[in-house]
């Protein structure tokens, strides 16, 4: 089993990256990528949901009839999300408020459902857990990168350093349109790199 860990993880995080290759989860991504902290939080929460739900789905794979699998997958996802939602409301009220509707909306995140339906439903629990974690990490990486770019262009800030005054930032980068444009450019750069380098061959 341990020998398969690495291939499963790289496949989920790189070759089949839910955001840059499958183009899933774009709605929450564009919505929360205005700030790095929100992007990182949502990414981590989604990773937790994918990992825990994936494990449970894999454990129940022989018990759930195919005909009702979608409601079951969604109910399991919803349970995990509700737990996290309540935990966030209790422990991190500010971030909970900042994420708003996008935290409960993890339930409908296509990336979660896609990994459950395509992978976890047919695999061993350990493999499903690794796949969920790696997919989530792959998504979080892209999300944080995009949030970093948007925050930088819109406010001139890199973490706590101010590279140029916030007043001369590109307001448009913080708007949804700017998010779409930057995401498109990011995809273009990744595709270009994919063609150029052998290092990334078959990856990302």
């Amino acid at each position, binding site marked *: 089993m341990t020998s398969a860990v690495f291939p499963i993880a790289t496949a989920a995080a790189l070759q089949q990256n839910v955001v840059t290759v499958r183009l899933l989860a774009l709605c929450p991504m564009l919505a929360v990528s205005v700030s790095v902290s929100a992007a990182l939080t949502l990414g981590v929460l989604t990773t937790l949901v994918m990992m825990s739900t994936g494990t449970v789905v894999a454990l129940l794979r022989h018990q759930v009839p195919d005909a009702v699998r979608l409601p079951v997958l969604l109910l399991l996802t919803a349970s995990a999300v509700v737990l996290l939602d309540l935990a966030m409301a209790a422990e991190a009220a500010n971030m909970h408020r900042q994420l708003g509707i996008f935290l409960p909306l993890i339930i409908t995140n296509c990336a979660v459902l896609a990994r459950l339906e395509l992978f976890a439903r047919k695999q061993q629990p350990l493999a499903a857990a690794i796949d969920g974690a790696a997919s989530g990490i792959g998504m979080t990486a892209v999300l944080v990168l995009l949030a970093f770019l948007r925050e930088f262009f819109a406010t001139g800030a890199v973490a706590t350093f101010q590279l140029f005054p916030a007043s*001369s930032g590109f*307001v*448009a*980068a913080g*708007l949804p349109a700017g998010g779409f444009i930057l995401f498109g450019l990011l995809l273009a750069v990744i595709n270009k790199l994919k063609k150029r380098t052998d290092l990334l061959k078959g990856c990302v």
Partner: protein
Amino acid sequence: MKIANSTAIMWSVAAATLPALAAATYLYGWGVCQQLFITVSAATLCELICLRWQGKPLAAAADGSAVVAACILTIALPPYVPWGVAAAAAIFAIGLAKHCYGGLGNNPFNPAMAGYALAFISFPEYFNAWTADATSHPTPLALARLGDPLAATTWLLALPALAAAAGGGVLLLLRLADWRLPLAFCLGAVATSMALALDWQTLIQGGLVFAAFFVITDPVTAATSRGGRWCYAALVGALAIWLRQHGSHSDSIAFAILIGNVLAPLCDLAVKQWRR
């Protein structure tokens, strides 16, 4: 005289913006020329880089389309915006609004207007005050919006419009631009301002006349059928005036044109369906 190929057309259009550029230089000073230099260099450089990345022949940069976009952008932007803003608008216009959509002839949006809109949304502070001779005052249009009777009292205010009309008139005479487009645009604008009971003098202010001759006539982003063109240009003219009055900015021609660009294929289709 009939000018047929797109390179010759583009350079003629660029030349036709010269009277308007000269008028702007006369009114606002050498900043206009500096800005023209910045936008032309940024646009050309961006054009070369985009062509290189796509593996297209670099000679295509000589077709003049980047220069035309830069000239239009220079006139649209206030004369003293920081160079970075002007360069960003030019780069956005050429790199994103033009090359990302497949280059010359494939762009759904007018590149110069897309660049202007980006700069306008991102840096609104530079667009509220036009500076002439280092003294800052609100635009005549902003005054008219506030109901200031002093607005538009001097003939100087009509100068940019006259200069744009002179250059644009030459384009129409040479048949480089379809006369239906400016005419329908003006009709739409006049009708809307009458409907809204606006001061007629506001019609010659802002970029309205310039847009009528140089922006609306862009054959790539306009509707293609004759009927569609009447419908498209009249719609943009009406929108430009309506947005001026009811939008959140004092001059919204760029937004009217971008909305019109989206609707241009629909205009063609609507006219075709209606004729049937």
